[in-house]
């Protein structure tokens, strides 16, 4: 039963001063998977309470699919192996709008008070809901002055 630590903070709109494009690429973004652990993991106090995080217990989550969510988006390179896009913290993120248990995934995610510190997706109740179905690729961010290949 994997437990997912998701990032709920949006540095682009909620951090002040607003980070640069390069920083935003490098920092975690909203809906990014920060890490995941096996069922029963003893999370730290801040992971359970910090308003920037959400904990989602997902019994049916496939670890291999979760690892996809953990991978960075590596920069594209030109023929001279020079980067044309930013390296990003994650190449994929979770589409919370597709997680309805029922219809409360996004509501829970948006609660900055974390009234429900951890959301449990009932095991087997949604056999069609897999990590892959809620995984969305991040768009590349072109470096300034560079036309993406």
């Amino acid at each position, binding site marked *: 039963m994997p437990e997912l*630590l998701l*990032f709920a903070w949006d*540095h682009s709109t909620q*951090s*002040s*001063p607003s*980070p640069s494009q*390069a*920083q*935003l*690429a*490098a*920092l*975690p973004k909203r809906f990014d998977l*920060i*890490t995941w*652990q096996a069922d029963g*993991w*003893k*999370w*730290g*106090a*801040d*992971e359970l309470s*910090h308003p*920037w*995080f959400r904990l989602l217990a997902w019994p049916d989550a496939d*670890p291999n699919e*979760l*690892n996809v969510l*953990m*991978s*960075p988006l590596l920069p594209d390179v030109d023929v001279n192996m020079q980067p044309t896009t930013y*390296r990003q*913290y994650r190449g994929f993120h979770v589409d919370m709008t597709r997680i309805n248990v029922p219809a409360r995934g996004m509501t829970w995610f948006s609660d900055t008070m974390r009234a429900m510190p951890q959301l449990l997706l009932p095991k087997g109740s949604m056999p069609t809901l897999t990590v892959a179905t809620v995984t969305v690729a991040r768009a590349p961010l072109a470096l300034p002055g560079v036309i993406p290949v």
Partner: protein
Amino acid sequence: MGLIVKTIGSGGGRDYSTLAGWAASLPANLVTDGNSYEGDCYADSEFVGTGGGSILTLSGHTTDATHTITLTTGPGQSFRDNANVQTNALRYNAANGVAITSDATAAAGTIYAADINVFFSNLQIKNTGNYGAGISADAGVVHTIDDCIISGGRYGALYNSRYGVTIRNSLLYIPLSGTAQIVHGNNGLPNIYFCTVVAASDVATAPTNAFFANYNTANVVQNCAIFGCAALQSGTGATFTTCLTDLSAGLPSGVTGSITYANQFQNTTIASGDWREKAGANLQGAGTADSTNGATDIAGTARPQGGNWDIGCWQSTVAADTTLTIDVRATVEFSLALSGDAKSPVEALAADRRDVQNPLEMGLVTVNDGACPLGFEGGVASGLAGNVEWLSLGFADRNIVSEWLSQPSIDGSFVGEWLKSSLLDTPAPSEFATSLIGVPPLTIEFQGQIQLDADRVLPIEWSALPAIMRVSLERLLASPSKRRILSTPGRLRLLKRQ
């Protein structure tokens, strides 16, 4: 400006259970936030990352010299804090303290650090991925690594590092075959001080280079031990100072080659690697003094020891700098030598030689009888037993009027005073002899025998010294400065001076 310290570990009561969680909680801009941030890792369990990615990513944060990011260990949690740090094999071992590993692959590091003003210390870091690295970085990175053990992957211990990085007193090693390098720099190399940079001696194919640098940006490699590689470096930006290697060709100034690898470290194999310095290693005392970068070694041992600056991350503590402090609670712990001039009735004293059971009695006799108007030579003994023999030997030396053993527990009319004054070194021997004998001394010469007291520290060169041992005082004292002392065994307490 404050310092926000968070605990990281899988045990109860920690702020974060994961390195990634702690890193994600850092504000984007530490400068406007006004704080520095420190993550203190706890060895509740090994930090393990799977899935091919870095277990920790530090990137995108605005920092400056006073708003920094530090990842280190909590109190008592590092391999450096281990009670057996001096005897534990020096390699990655999660049982010894905080340890971080991942299977990060494809040039990714177990730790990916692209921020500047980042400090790593006291950590063990290992990569097990396919073509991964211990710590990988990115262009423009500036960070400092102190007192770490980094077991690298096929991209090395450090990958994509550069001249803005400093690494000190660390072990960088490669336990697998076919690596390209141990340290890779994308723009010059890091500045590397007092590091042991090695590949296991039994890897099928040694690393192509110890160091690989794109661009020849200047950097410093100083007091480093570099062993087990096929070549020293690719790139020419590095300035080497007092480095040793087993390589024999293509060495720049500052690197001494053809040093036997097996003679330097306790063990150099993949399975049992132990890169603590071996006794008698060429590394010992071969380094350049540098208190800025090498005040302590990877095990916390202060440098220098007895004037020795060892090359590499390990500083030997069994060299000439080993110090002994005589435990004042030992039975007898002093020696005082006074000798007479030509007028001394040495011959008479020798003729008056007699065997007594108590050396105190002998002393009283010689003084009261006036046979020896001068002083005595103190000695060291563990007690009265056997002292008569020693006294007899003393008489045989014509330059020594008498030799007198005593024991602090004997509090004779003047013995206690004499012992006290001897131990405290006051009054001066001649003055004391005057008061003791009651007549002006003819000539009293302090011969230079060591007067041992609780604070006296003696250098000694022995290869292995346990904390408490039985030794021959004669060997002990005669070795370093030819001090003559009797051979009575004594119980010494060996104390390591920090």
